[in-house]
């Protein structure tokens, strides 16, 4: 113990340098964690979270009362996560390998530059672009196909629309991370494989893909903690927060944002938030435990 204090005193400069982040994280991350107790409170604006009276499990009633809505948005949240993560990971890896394989290096670089552009466009702006394609009177798609599809009132199409928007926006940038791994592969491995008579596909299968697995694992693990959280912009902005589409597009995060903006149902929303956080934590711990069983090297902690 005395050693520990002596060590800390010796490193007091490092303590000072670590302090700002410590404090910022404390106020923006840790205090809101404590704020989750709100789910068990009868929230009163004038009293704040901690002094509001306890309400037991009253707020969780809504999970039963508005069971349909609750089940629906939980289902949407999880299904969209699975859809985006599986398709996204596959495409990110494929694109990274494709660009890495291309021998026209100048062309590869230019194309990559263009592919990354969409990630820098905010959803507030993307919303206008999507509308230009899908609007019923002026939409490009309806004019080009000569149809009159009412996209903004046809919910069943939205999972696919959102998937396409998500792919368009994130794939170019998503592949960068994997390219950084590919850039680090020892070229001697490829040369050795060539001497052994391996063709291109065999080299990809036996050298390139295995070297990406640790990064894929880390990225998947990191995302598992966010199963219950969604890209709010996608579901709130791109759908124009259109109530008619909620059946297919409402996720927990957009429900929470809506209730914040309307200052309504804070009790229920707090219950949904707590549910979101706890499920996220459990999934993360489970996924990490699983990875550690299979390949301890790749586990997060």
């Amino acid at each position, binding site marked *: 113990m005395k*050693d520990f204090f002596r060590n800390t005193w010796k*490193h007091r*400069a*490092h303590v000072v*340098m*670590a302090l700002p*982040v410590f404090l*910022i*994280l404390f106020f*923006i*991350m840790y*205090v*809101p964690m*404590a*704020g*989750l107790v*709100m789910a068990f409170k009868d929230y009163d*604006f004038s009293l*704040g*979270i901690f002094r509001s009276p306890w309400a037991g499990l009253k707020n969780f009633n809504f999970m039963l009362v508005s069971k349909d809505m609750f089940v629906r948005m939980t289902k949407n949240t999880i299904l969209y996560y699975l859809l985006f993560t599986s398709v996204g990971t596959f495409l990110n890896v494929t694109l990274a390998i*494709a660009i*890495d*394989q*291309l021998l*026209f290096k100048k062309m590869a670089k230019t194309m990559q*530059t263009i*592919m990354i*552009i*969409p990630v*820098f*466009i*905010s*959803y*507030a*702006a993307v919303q*206008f*672009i999507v509308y*230009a394609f899908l609007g019923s*009177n002026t*939409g*490009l798609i309806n*004019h080009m196909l000569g149809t009159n599809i009412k996209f903004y009132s046809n919910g069943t199409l939205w999972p696919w629309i959102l998937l396409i928007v998500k792919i*368009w926006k994130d794939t170019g940038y998503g592949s*960068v*991370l994997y*390219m*950084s791994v*590919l*850039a680090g592969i*020892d*070229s001697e491995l*490829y040369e050795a494989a060539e001497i052994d008579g391996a063709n291109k596909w065999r080299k990809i299968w036996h050298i390139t893909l295995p070297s990406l697995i640790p*990064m894929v694992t880390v990225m998947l693990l990191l995302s598992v*903690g966010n199963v219950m959280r969604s890209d*709010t912009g996608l579901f709130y902005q791109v759908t124009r927060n259109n109530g008619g589409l909620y059946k297919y597009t409402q996720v927990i*995060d957009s429900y929470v944002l809506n209730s914040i903006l309307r200052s309504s149902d804070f009790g229920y929303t707090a219950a949904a938030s707590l549910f979101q*956080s706890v499920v996220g934590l459990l999934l*993360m*711990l489970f996924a990490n435990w699983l990875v550690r069983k299979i390949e301890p090297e790749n586990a997060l*902690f």
Partner: protein
Amino acid sequence: MSKKKNSALDIAPSRRERKGFGQYVLALILLIYTVVCFLPVWLVFVAAFTDEKTIARNGFAFWPEKWSLNGVNAVLKYGDKLVSSYGVTIFVTVAGTFLGLLVMSMFAYSISRKDFRLSKFLSVYLLIPMLFNGGQLSGYICFTTYYHLKDNLWVLILPLCVTTMNVIILRTYIANSIPGELMEAAKIDGAGEYRTFFQITLPLLKPSLAAVGFMMATAYWNDWQNALMYIDTDKKKPLQLLLINIQKSIEFLLNNNNVPSSVRAAMGGTIPQYSSTMATVIVVIGPIMIAYPFFQKYFIKGLTVGSVKG
């Protein structure tokens, strides 16, 4: 690992393979994907310079029948609002990015000191928010009722200022690319901890700072959600909120038939929804598009994520 393959984006001399048929097929597929990626962006630019009535009649098109500068002119009419929103966005972006980079790199440097016992605890402290967090509602109430930051520009800066992921990226770079001996040497030469950090570590951290900084700047520039939740005063509204408000007012005008005809007349007969909003979109996304190619070269080098465990 001294004989690393060159970055895939450089011309790799070790792989001077023959460009066979497969290469051309691959190039073609990638080219098509690139064009598809670019078309929506192209559409924005074309629509901004298309005649309003042409869009109303023929819909959006990749190549218009009639060009016009009216949309751009309509944007210039926002004048004051646009200038003040630009000011807010630039201030928040610059202040937030610099503050974030400074505090995060100091933290990353501290926890990567080898015999610093507290760094174990600090790493865990850093990691926990990635596993568990309070969510939007709890954060909203903390910021409004406890920190009293509603309608204060700090509320746009603080929530995006420190992220676990960015600290990890910076720490990885320090661990992998900055030789520890360099810092030992500086210490032997009598440099204090702060001097070692600011004069040795920080300059060497530049590629990572550029990459992380640019991603942070983009996050600040594109943040609409915090603005929507917290900012009320017109003068404090950033660009993204301006964009959202434009959409809301268009919807309002379209859905209300009893909007006075004088208002409609003042807007030039038709509601300036198509070309002018696209022109506004250009104004909002433009600066990032221009800055991005200068930072791209740091992406691969500077964004490597190492072990989260430390």
